[in-house]
């Protein structure tokens, strides 16, 4: 069974301009080949492949076999984890504010 990618993995994957751009490129739902993803840019196949692996690890992209060609498709499901992240940031504010309270009220 595949482990569900963590929110950190999703944010780490998206916290990079190249990968965010790749996700954008795939966001129309059409699987694209590496050749298509590098067309019109100076980004190497190796660099794109490396970034696609990271996106795959976060569950945002999966490989699709189209005949003899490997293509990559976006899987938007992990993006729901953003809500979990907001919940965690909210808890961090609670802890920080209790320290602030202790400091100004002493």
């Amino acid at each position, binding site marked *: 069974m595949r482990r569900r990618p963590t929110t950190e993995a999703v944010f780490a994957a998206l916290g990079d301009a190249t990968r965010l751009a790749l996700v954008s490129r795939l966001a129309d739902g059409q699987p694209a080949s590496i050749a298509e993803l590098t067309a019109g840019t100076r980004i190497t196949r190796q660099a794109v492949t490396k970034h696609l692996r990271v996106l795959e690890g976060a569950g945002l992209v999966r490989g699709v076999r189209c005949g003899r060609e490997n293509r990559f498709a976006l899987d938007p499901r992990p993006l729901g984890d953003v809500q979990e992240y907001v919940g965690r940031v909210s808890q961090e504010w609670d802890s920080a504010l209790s*320290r602030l309270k202790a400091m100004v009220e002493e």
Partner: protein
Amino acid sequence: MAEDRIEKRIELRAPIARVWRAISDYREFGEWFRVALEGPFELDKTVRGRILHPGFEHVVWEAQIEAMEPERLFAFTWPVLANVDKAAYSADYTGLPRTRVEFRLEPTATGTLLTITESGFEKLPAELRGVVFPRNDGGWTQQMKNIESYVGTHA
């Protein structure tokens, strides 16, 4: 409904001047926020520091100060930093989505009412949603051109 904003209200038994100092003085802020800041908060300036939470000392804290109205409002934006795992961490926050944090202060009979909001979490999904139907290929090509230098230094 998506929760894209955090709001906290806290009643502090301390005069507003005291609370303002704890928020706007970079040393005092650093103490309760647990960050060692390099310099004072100044309007329209970027302030950096080191996170003091054990295990996260490698993370650079960064904020751009957007409002400093004494005893009323302190606001900054900062990048969404979920990528703090040591192995994957990069201190280059260029291009990351940012949220806005606001501290609003109001005097009360017993002290100070502090309201903190952090907004802009919708930006990440919105960015993605915005590109679900790309306007044209030119946008994509331009985007890739913009990041070529980035890739060059992070390959």
